[in-house]
């Protein structure tokens, strides 16, 4: 094996994305970044900071407010052999680009019999807190999981953010790269060198044997907190981060469920026709006829995201409610068990505006 520099240090999720982008752009001239505000002084929460001065404005392209055209421009450039990384500061704006994404980019490789490839990455950030409200906090990853031809990846740790962005840019398909605003400041150990985190491979973030908890995007962080609360009552939760939502590593989840007999899926999104529905269906198809498995899903309340904090707090599943749901699922009934309160500093300390 070649020698590699495996030295790691603690950096944030946003810094990890910035570093992956810089390394990808240095390695391959065809990689470029485009989107609204990508070269402004804030640099998309630091994820694109200083790239423009290093690589020039031809490769860090500030775009007009035209999401549908930007998506088409990105896919057209990829047909010419470029590797665009497109950025949406909020995932909500992707709805303006669904035609280019679903009707064109997702279908081109198949519909042209393999003659066309669309290697493009669309980074999209889910917002939350400080009153992001109805149109700045939507989590639409399940829309994209529905469509063949697209890949969807939603890393939750700085390590996986860097490695998944590398895999996404090197992939020859349109990839929806899902970030969460509340993850950007999270720190973790990240190798300096470039490395890949593969599609279709889930990660067991915390091993356990009583219940399997699957957490998607920022919900993962709350699931880890819930697992800590459960541990105080001697309940051992296994927490799985799917990372890659399409393709999905259902095998790792099923193996865990076969061990624990209990499954709680917590999505950072609505449950109706959502990622949690898909994961639960796949698990049922795989484990039915074997031992009895208790299952439950949690996600956003099925309402539009409210702005005022008192309602917003009810809208999102927090670690307390996740822990309580897990406990009650294990007990097979509603109990009056109350978990330890776990702080969510990224939410409590966030002062916006975006």
């Amino acid at each position, binding site marked *: 094996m070649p020698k590699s520099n495996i030295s790691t240090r603690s950096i944030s999720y946003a810094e990890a994305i910035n570093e992956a982008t810089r390394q990808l752009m240095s390695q391959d001239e065809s990689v*470029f970044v485009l989107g609204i505000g990508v070269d402004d002084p804030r640099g998309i929460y630091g994820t694109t900071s200083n790239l423009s001065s290093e690589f020039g404005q*031809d*490769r860090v392209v500030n*775009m*007009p407010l*035209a999401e*549908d*055209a*930007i*998506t*088409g*421009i*990105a*896919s*057209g*450039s*990829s*047909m*010419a*052999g*470029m590797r*665009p990384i497109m950025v949406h500061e909020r995932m909500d704006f992707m709805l303006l680009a669904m*035609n*280019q994404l679903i*009707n*064109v980019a997702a279908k*081109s*490789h*198949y*519909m*042209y*019999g*393999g*003659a*066309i*490839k*669309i*290697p493009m990455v669309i980074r999209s950030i889910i917002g939350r807190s400080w009153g992001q409200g109805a149109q700045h906090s939507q989590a639409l990853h399940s829309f994209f999981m529905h469509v*063949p*031809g697209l*890949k969807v990846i939603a890393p939750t740790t700085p390590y996986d953010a860097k490695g998944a962005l590398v895999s996404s840019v090197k992939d*020859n*398909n349109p990839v929806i790269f899902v970030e969460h605003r509340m993850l950007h400041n999270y720190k973790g150990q990240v190798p300096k060198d470039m490395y890949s985190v593969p599609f279709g491979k889930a990660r067991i973030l915390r091993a356990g044997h009583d219940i399997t908890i699957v957490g998607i995007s920022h919900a993962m962080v709350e699931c880890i907190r819930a697992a800590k609360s459960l541990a105080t009552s001697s309940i051992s939760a296994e927490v799985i981060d799917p990372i890659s939502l399409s393709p999905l590593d259902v095998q790792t989840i099923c193996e865990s469920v076969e061990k624990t007999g209990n499954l709680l899926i917590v999505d950072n999104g609505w449950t109706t026709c959502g990622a949690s529905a898909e994961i639960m269906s796949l698990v049922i198809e795989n484990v039915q006829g074997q031992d009895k498995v208790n299952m439950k899903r949690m996600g956003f309340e099925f309402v539009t995201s409210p702005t005022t904090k008192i309602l917003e707090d009810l809208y999102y599943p927090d670690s307390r409610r996740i822990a309580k749901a897990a406990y009650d699922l294990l007990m097979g009934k509603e109990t009056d068990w109350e978990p330890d309160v776990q702080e969510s500093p990224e939410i409590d300390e966030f002062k916006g505006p975006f």
Partner: protein
Amino acid sequence: MKNENRKSNKTKLINNLYKSLYRIRTIEEKIALIYPTDQIKSPVHLSIGQEAVTVGACAALLEADVVFGTYRGHSLYLAKGGDLNGMMAELYGKSTGVAGGKGGSMHLVDTNRGIMGMSAVVATTIPQAAGYAYAFKVRKQNNIVVSFFGDGATEEGVFHETLNFAALKKLPMIFVCENNQYAVLSHQSERQSNTNIAERASVYGMHSEKIDQNDPYTIYEKVNWARNQIIEKGRGPFFFECMTERYREHVGPSERDDVKTLSAEIVDPLQQLSKLVSSDFKQDVFKEVDLELKQAINFAEKSAFPANDSLYKDVYA
């Protein structure tokens, strides 16, 4: 001598334009005849009547220049040098088709000839053409992209989004609007407050012209001039609104209900070119196209349908 050379070059060009137009017209008229036999089990949108635009424009392009088109794409595909066997087999849904039977008439492609695809959703290839042109620009490649679309596409938001970007970045591309005045059965005047599309394009800050003659030579000259401006002077983008006529229904082989009135009013480009070409040359063209078309139909009929396992092929690259 110089004048004679120029004259002989023009004769060659006229001959080529005639051949290209005759070939496309003949192929599409044959497709219209085959259609009722139900061997082509998918929608076809014929270009009959409006071939002059793609024939004229593509005559000014090199093989490495790139085009993007629409679901009414047979004429563009053939004018840019796309393989007829691959097209006919694609229409028949056969494995030897350009997209292995997965695209059909509306999604012709031939990347080796710079034919980068055609979309069934109006206006969707316009930004892709700009993206391709952006790649040419940053790589300083001496080629251009031509985006073909209809008058209906100019009503879509993405058309305006792309014109703005292309003009902002001075992209090496030409927008060619094939204005046949109809979106299915709705006339342009029912859909657009200002029907002068070239005028609307010009406000984005690009050279824009309306070409009224449905004549391939005029269109060739304009596109050739624009291409030279882009390559030699770094100018771009350019916009041409080409007035033309579609003789058939929006979709399918039938003639338009008003075809009799229409043919009394308009000048057919093939008939016009025919007057400029020698009868010997025409006889050769007739024979050549007849043979090529028979072989292509035979190829399509004899080719196998795709194997079942190809259903799952090329979902991901």
